[in-house]
């Protein structure tokens, strides 16, 4: 063994943790022939004894008893408080559930009451504007100009195959229903244009009767009779208070 290899194992040797008896023998033999390595070994052994003395001195040290008491107290508190907390949380869940049910019940009552109160106003608001001459489509104006607004938004329709039917009775003006009965006209429901929501149809407005090419039916996903393809079809366009076309229905 040379000094370099001795240096690599001297710590282990001094700590009594030599790996193999043969290696230990070689290291000890080298320290007997090399004074410097012998001194190095003595230093390491001295250090080992110093560390062992320090370890022995501190061996009996431990945390004060107060630490254990605090920990056990914390443990008890933790395991006693938790069930109480869970009971409280259960109670709060029940309270929240009851409150939610009450809120829903009140909302339903208020909603029904407000609907019943609004119905007469809607009838008044959506008075039949069709009868007035100024609202009629001028004869010299082509009907296409009314459909232009419809067609320019048709690509925004979410589904072109099926027309979106407005099932809310408030959407269809009461006057229109009356007209259907009187004139024996058959009409589709109002089909909202793509930028309009069903709710906005309830704001009222003016209905203008127009004539459109029959191909316009296809734009709204309605069936088209190809035998009468060149004929025109009647339609009612509902204009909002802002003058924009909100919905359309086809009349036969």
């Amino acid at each position, binding site marked *: 063994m040379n000094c370099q290899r001795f240096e690599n194992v001297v710590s282990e040797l001094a700590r009594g943790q030599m790996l193999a008896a043969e290696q230990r023998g070689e290291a000890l033999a080298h320290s007997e022939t090399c004074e410097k390595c012998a001194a190095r070994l003595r230093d390491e052994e001295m250090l080992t004894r110093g560390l062992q*003395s320090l370890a022995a001195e501190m061996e009996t*040290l431990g945390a004060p008893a107060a630490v254990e008491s605090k920990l*056990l107290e914390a443990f008890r508190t933790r395991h006693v408080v938790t069930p109480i907390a869970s009971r409280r949380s259960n109670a709060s869940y029940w309270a929240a559930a009851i409150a939610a049910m009450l809120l829903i019940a009140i909302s339903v009552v208020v909603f029904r009451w407000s609907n019943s109160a609004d119905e007469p106003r809607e009838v008044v608001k959506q008075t039949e504007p069709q009868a007035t001459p100024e609202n009629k489509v001028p004869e010299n104006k082509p009907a296409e100009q009314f459909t232009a607004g419809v067609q320019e938004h048709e690509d925004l329709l979410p589904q072109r195959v099926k027309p979106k039917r407005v099932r809310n009775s408030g959407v269809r003006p009461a006057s229109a229903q009356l007209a259907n009965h009187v004139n024996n006209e058959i009409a589709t429901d109002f089909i909202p244009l793509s930028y309009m929501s069903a709710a906005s149809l309830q704001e009222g407005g003016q209905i203008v009767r127009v004539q459109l090419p029959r191909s316009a039916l296809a734009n709204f996903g309605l069936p088209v009779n190809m035998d009468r393809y060149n004929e025109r079809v009647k339609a009612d366009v509902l204009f909002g208070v802002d003058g924009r076309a909100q919905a359309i229905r086809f009349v036969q």
Partner: protein
Amino acid sequence: MTNGLNWRMNLKSDLSDSELLRSMLAGDEEALALLYRRRQGGIFRFALQMSGSKTIAEDVTQEVFLFLMREGHVFDPARGSVSAFLMGVARNHVLRRLRVEHLLAPLGDDSDDDAPFLHPSSDLCPLDDLTRAETIESVRKAVLSLPSKYREVVVLCELQDISYGETAEILGCAIGTVRSRLHRARALLLEKLRPVAAVEETGSATVRCFA
């Protein structure tokens, strides 16, 4: 009451650390008490030897077991023993505390006035000339003056007598790293325990021969 508690604890004294931890997490106070009494000494001493402060050691010991109460379920037996887990938690707390209190700066440094407690290498053992108390005090100071990565391997392997393998688990490094750090740490300790005069004479703090 106390006798009853001790009797029940005696029954559980044969349980392993893992079993005690499981019982503790299930709400068994005696399991906590047993585990604490079994492991608090090592943790307290580790923290004390790392920090040199009893206050920090007490706080760390308490924090380790409070952590065990809160987060004990994160212990994975496949990754090591409970004692290694606890020591790893203690190590994190100590290092964090030392960072906060700016105690990581070496106490002695190279120009330490308290350093020359040991004589240079000679036929006589340098420690022979010192009283035991002085020796212990000088070694303690030298250990405290080591950089933390060397101090922790000295504390764990030399003072706590923990195996290289378990030390590697605690520190989260390879066994070879533990060995090399310990070797370097011992060299540093010898330098610190060597008298300044001897260092000036030889011109080097490390005595090596490469015959």
